[in-house]
């Protein structure tokens, strides 16, 4: 579920559960899970990430697929866990990571590739623009999967986001270590979102949305930010 969604954005988690249930997936939330450890690794604290990665593989071992509504966390599980495991010197952990990481999917990847579905039966009659997120596109290579899923939503009007591929400036602890640069990047992103004419900004990562959304509400821009899962979970009954 990712620690950020669990703690700060439970509606994204609830939407993910609702969406996957609707698509016929048996969803479990192993309560032993915590975090992927990316914050530690990216901040230079690799030894401190070892217990976090161990908790991750312990919690998720044995499932057919591990699905997370976050491109960033999935990229961490796929790319960084093996580095952390190697550093631990624990062969059991290395093996566990090697076994688990190919089964970790970002939400749009899981729906499009594993379930083979593009039209998830959602209804969302609003003007929406999408921030593709750096880690989803550049690290994971999810390509146009999120866009294809969104375009199949009934009632939706997708509008282009200018300079969509540019980073929003969140960058994890970068947002606190270099707050001025982070905000300068975010301010440009927020301006592009306003220029798009959308009512809703969607992305596959709540971390980016927390940053861009924080700027938009401070500016009283009147634009909502929503996670991809929440739009895909919407139906006529609850749009």
């Amino acid at each position, binding site marked *: 579920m990712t620690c950020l969604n669990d703690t700060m954005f439970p509606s994204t988690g609830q939407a993910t559960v609702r969406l996957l249930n609707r698509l016929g997936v048996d969803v479990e939330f192993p309560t032993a899970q915590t975090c992927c450890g990316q914050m530690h690794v990216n901040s230079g604290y690799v030894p401190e990430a070892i217990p976090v990665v161990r908790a991750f593989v312990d919690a998720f071992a044995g499932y057919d697929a591990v699905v997370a509504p976050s491109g960033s966390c999935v990229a961490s599980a796929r790319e960084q866990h093996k580095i952390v495991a190697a550093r631990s010197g624990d062969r059991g952990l290395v093996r566990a990571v090697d076994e688990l990481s190919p089964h970790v999917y970002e939400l749009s990847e899981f729906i499009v590739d594993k379930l083979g579905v593009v039209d998830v039966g959602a209804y969302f009659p609003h003007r929406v623009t999408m921030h593709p997120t750096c880690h989803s596109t550049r690290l994971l290579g999810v390509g146009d999967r999120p866009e294809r899923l969104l375009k199949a939503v009934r009632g939706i009007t997708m509008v282009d986001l200018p300079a969509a591929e540019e*980073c929003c400036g*969140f960058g994890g602890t970068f947002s606190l270590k270099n707050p001025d640069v982070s905000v300068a990047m975010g301010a440009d992103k927020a301006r592009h979102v306003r220029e798009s004419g959308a009512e809703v900004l969607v992305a596959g990562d709540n971390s980016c949305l927390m940053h861009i959304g924080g700027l938009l509400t401070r500016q009283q821009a009147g634009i909502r930010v929503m996670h991809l899962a929440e739009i895909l979970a919407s139906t006529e009954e609850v749009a």
Partner: protein
Amino acid sequence: MSDGRMIETKTFLGIPPFPVAAKEALADSQLRGNMHHATHTIRTKRARVTAELPDWEQLRVAGADIKDDVTANMGRYLVQLEESLTKAGANVHWARDAAEANQIVIGIARRHKVDEVVKVKSMATGEIELNVAMEKAGIAVWETDLAELIVQLGHDLPSHILVPAIHRNRSEVREIFMREMGKVGMPAAADLSDEPAELAGAARRHLREKFLRAKVAVSGANFMVADTGTLVVVESEGNGRMCLTLPEVLISVVGIEKIVPTWKDLEVFLQLLPRSATGERMNPYTSTWTGVTPGDGPQEVHVILLDNNRTKVLADEVGRQALRCIRCSACLNVCPVYERVGGHAYGSIYPGPIGAILTPMLKGVGVSKQIDSLPFASSLCGACYEVCPVRINIPEVLVHLRELVVGSHRGGVPGTLMTTMKGASWLLGGGWRLGLLQKAAGLSTRVLWKNGVIGRMPPPMSRWTDARDCPAPPTESFRAWWKRTDGGRNDAGSAGGTAGKGDQR
């Protein structure tokens, strides 16, 4: 002779750590405008000319492979290069560090009793601060690349690898030329406009005098071919060609990683470099020289092979890929951080993403707050890796260096972040601990709410809240909801409820 006139070179000494320097740069709206315009122009051109090559990705792989072969077999190639150069009539010198390299250049200039040299744009000589050393020795150095000339005349610092005066616009350039050219040589015309062609004309007249007078030239090289002993300079203006052919003595200072094994390997790099650097299919001038050619060009040729900690970088398994760098600047032009703050904030001749990894590796981590701040000067968006013509995984090296920086400070009194990270490591080691934290956060922040968001807060949270609202923690975490409703099976309310109801944004 130079008549004793010379320009005092500014250095990066005293530049504060990146977040501080960046804050100052961000406040300079002229700089922001210049940088945005310039980086977006080159970025767009690069994207266009790389997209038109069907084998661009294969070229990138080939470039990386050739460079990896060089780093893996550095010793063998260096010996081969020295033999080829010597056979071709060049004098080969080995420099362990900046001081040694500078002394060799000064020694050669003194032997020829000159008090000035002309210079081709070169990153290696910038790295070793050759100009400063030469001035101390009483030898004037004339930069002949247009942008380097603008920087030098403006008593300024370079802010880009390829376009060192990228932070200046044309009216600023005109002012610098009008004010400074006459002090050190041919003055600019009194009615000089800020038309690019006129500015280039003024530079041409100013430099022509120096080209024709100079006895000694100093250059770097983009490539050194090990099997032939050929050095290569790739440029756009022809100033390099003038320096490489007119003077009697040519001294080239080149980092040891600039080797390519064979002449044929240039085929790969002469496609990768111009398209990545200036967004051109081909650069206007490519000069190659192999030692001394009797009766043609410089009759005394020196090549100074510079280590300056490159062998230390070679020993770093993750970091050594930085030695593939061909100094094209594609990573700078595409970097959202560099674009907004410019090059000076990096406090090094190597700015931008590549500088954020090269500078700490060449100078060492744990010795300066400024250098230690560089690996953190990135949001890890990965745009640099995507465009790098030799596939340097810059984000990977940044994260690796962050660990080295943190490691270099372990053992002392733990700072705020160290304490936070250690605490988080414990909390995130088990699901029940995280659950406790969530309950505490939900309760304790309730007083800070206003309309579901947390507004301005005191330090250190002000780093977030000065410009951004912070979402208020929800009344119920996902974990608590899952437990209460058995994953939504016993809850008609929130599981089927309106999106966005569970949290407050």
